[in-house]
């Protein structure tokens, strides 16, 4: 049986297509579902094995990035918490990361409260470019297993500056190897160059860079010596393998 991947979207979640394509390619059966279909009871989160919150500008990023989508998700708190507790893979990319932070699921904490934010980039505006990332091999993150030490992924965000509540939280993230990817050259001012963080079991990952946009070699900005599949592929393959 193919693992079922839920690609959860709302208004102006824009990266659902390519995220679904990535999971399908890796052998999952991806289904794109609007959050309202879950809220109205047409679909159930527990029917799925993987959850992805794609990038985009959910609800226009009104109030702040991912805030409204996060509120909708919070109204189904139990279902989401059960999904995470069951150890099923959850990935939030870009706007999805912002949603995970604003729901309080990342950074993980016992009270489920919001302990960090993704703030306006230091340059004050949206940036779209390719960045180099250092991969932390000691991280428990299931998505980044087996990646080379350094990879490239594109970023495209206006609010990507990761700021934990305080120094203690930051140290806990670093000490627990809960930051699986770091920027080599910090593009937005994130604390400790953090590009993404995960839960202690490693099944929940949120990151600003887009692995689905460097899935095939042909998507890279460098046009020579391309392999067929690229670094982003591993994120999705790992999640699917984990479920199989």
């Amino acid at each position, binding site marked *: 049986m193919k693992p079922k991947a839920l690609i959860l979207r709302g208004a102006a979640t*824009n990266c659902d297509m390519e995220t679904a394509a990535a999971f*399908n390619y890796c052998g999952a059966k991806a289904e794109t579902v609007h959050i309202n279909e879950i809220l109205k009871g047409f679909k159930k989160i527990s029917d799925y094995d993987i959850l992805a919150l794609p990038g985009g500008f959910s609800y226009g990023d009104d109030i702040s990035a991912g805030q409204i989508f996060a509120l909708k998700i919070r109204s189904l708190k139990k279902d989401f918490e059960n999904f995470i507790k069951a150890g099923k893979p959850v990935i939030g990319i870009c706007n999805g990361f912002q949603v995970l932070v604003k729901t309080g699921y990342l950074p993980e904490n016992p009270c489920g409260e919001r302990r960090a934010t993704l703030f306006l980039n230091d340059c004050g505006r949206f940036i779209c470019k390719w960045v180099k990332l250092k991969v932390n091999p000691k991280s428990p993150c299931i998505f980044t297993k087996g990646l080379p030490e350094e990879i490239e992924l594109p970023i495209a965000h206006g609010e990507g500056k990761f700021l934990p509540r305080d120094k203690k939280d930051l140290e806990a993230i670093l000490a627990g190897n809960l930051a699986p990817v770091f920027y080599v050259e910090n593009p937005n001012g994130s604390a400790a160059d953090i590009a993404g963080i995960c839960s202690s079991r490693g099944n929940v990952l949120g990151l600003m860079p887009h692995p*689905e946009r460097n899935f095939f070699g042909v998507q890279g900005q460098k046009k020579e010596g391309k392999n067929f599949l690229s670094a982003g592929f591993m994120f999705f393959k790992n999640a699917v393998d984990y479920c199989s």
Partner: protein
Amino acid sequence: MENFINASKKELLKLNEKFGWSLNSAELEKARAYFAGLGRNPTRAEMETIAQTWSEHCKHKTFSGPVELCIGGRKRLFRNLFKETIVKATLKLNKKWCLSVFKDNAGVIEMSPRSKWGLAFKAETHNHPCAVAPYGGAETGVGGVIRDILGTGLGAKPVLNTDNFCFGPFEKEKMPKGFLPPKKIYEGVVEGVRDYGNRMGIPTAAGSVHFDESYTFNPLVYVGCVGLIRKDRIFKKIKKGDLIVVIGGPTGRDGIHGATFSSADIDENTGSSAVQIGHAVNEKKVLDVIMKAADKKLYNALTDCGAGGFSSAIGELGADTGACVDLSKALLKDSSVKPWEIWVSESQERMVLSVPRKNLAALKDICGIEECPICVLGSFDGSGRLRVFFGNEKIIDMDMAFLHGGLPKFVKKAVYKPRPEIKHFTHKPKDYNEVLNRIISDVNVCSKEAIIRQYDHEVQGATVLKPFCGKSGNTPSDAAVIWPYAFTGEMDNYEGFAVSHGFDSQSGKINPYLMSFYAIDEAIRSLACAGADISRTALLDNFCCANPGNPHILGDFAMAALGCRDAAIAYGAPFISGKDSFYNQSKVKGKDYPIALSLLISAIAPVKDVRKTVSSEFKKAGNPVYLIGRIKGGMGGSVYSKIFKEKNNVLPPCKPREHMKDYLFLSKAVESGFVAAAHDVSKGGLAAAAAKMSFDGLTCKLELGGVCRGLRTEEALFSQGPGLIIVEVESGKEKAFLKSSCGIRISKIGFVSADEKLEISLRGETQIKADTKKLLSLWKNSLGDKI
């Protein structure tokens, strides 16, 4: 309206001015006669409908009207200039891969014979709105062209946005009353395109920016969109009895008179209330509803609400069947909006669908999930009349035939006077390195990274050739290549498409006819560099012009249109859609400021295998460097001439058939894997092109002696003509490359080097020896410095 049918000519003109209809006296007379025949006065709503429908913006009466062109005393009459130029080229070329041309919101070509997909392409301008309200004007420009694509056939999926801007120089800070400084306009426009395009989840990955004094009061903002459409869903057919359904945002008072406003010159009294207010998320909801409803085949036709709002959308859809509308059913932003305002309001993010009654419930379900407002305004009733009510009150009752066929035609005069050619040279440069520094940092050459990086050009994961490529992401690309695997779901099908542009208003000041050739040449050449299948290139023409009431302005325009026809035929590239925008002209303290005649050519062609796409940065030291084409000299229209006030205005000749042969050869060579890098020689000439290829760590050493016989050094280095491409060939494949080049004008001009200095010599004498890091820094920071 009282006293309309008995009004005098003068009184009619007074009404026209009071209500801002932008109609001329012949048109007013035609309307008067129609209602006199009915024995009653028109309602306000009827006159507003006529003004919108007959506006320059909606009917393109200059381009589609009769024009008498006079060249040196010889007169020539065109009954319909558009049909006898742009359309004629397409008819003559008669390409079977053109699936829909000129009749829908966008033109459609085939991706390939075996593909089930077509490519819908359209570009628009939103100049007048951006002059008075840059952010809102740019946002709604983007929103409008995306809706054009959504409303093509039975709905296309937008996969690429394009943007091309023209601004006045940033140095101009003090402006007369009622005008914004160019820098303010620039900032607003860039932010508007960014915020709308990014929120829509459509990559903005191709475009250009041009600066010229003539755009100081009238900026130009071109926005384009490409959509994917199933080949079997290209045509719409309204069925009698279908419901008129509106989805999307509510209707308000914003954007009243947008169509008529853009059919007049701008002056200090022009307000911004004619500009609409955009809301990207509402449009994304509309997009998502349409994609789902299209899959379930819930509607028979759709179109967008653009200029003229409901009056145009319902008027056009119902042109054959007639329509009966009750405006009291419309969702409103504000309950005080008057019925005629509802009818013509250009509130954004609305689409009109023709829905069989039995499908309404299913459509409402989708709208419920997607949180997209929906309302039913009436039906396409088969009466052949347009009848509009507000509750029980009838506000419009007109024949569709009069509304769409009643526009009077009258001949416009056009005069073309060729400019004298200046063959001698007035500037003698001392140091060519210094010249290159000036050129590479000129606003018309330098990097537009400050703009481009604010756009998400990677969303949808499909952007194979990006605005910047190379391991450093520093080298600019000639075209965008898109591989829409995520939407099609065909991950083992490597077919894609490429989009590029051509624009040369500087050359147009010297010879508008040749300008069209240059623009088309540049666009096709850029596609060839990326490795597109240029034998299937389709073009869009977007003209921007000053007031066509001036015979000389119209004369230049007519020559450019003829240039488009002749060039399109010679290159074998048909037009599939286009748009024209007139009255890009301002009155300041009694003086007229017209823009330079501006033609944007957008080109699209399929790419057979996106994996073979080539970028422009040098790849490997030691690889040979070739030049395709011959340098012909002449500094007319060049960046060099503009900077150094060189008076020589000779334009290099364009030889379309030879150039096309060269480009087809290059296209094949890319496909065969012989080519490591290719870049077209455009603004700034050959030296600037070689410099841009050197921004990723490697550079080149070139000797131009063999390719510029009889030319001056500045001509060899900086002249801009058509036909030239620099190509880096894989060293191991040079023989095969040469073998396949029989009959093609290629010359070996040097090799790629791992040095830090770009070197260009002529007949053994070094003319340029420039540090590529310094060039890169000048190129990267020049526009940034000015923001």
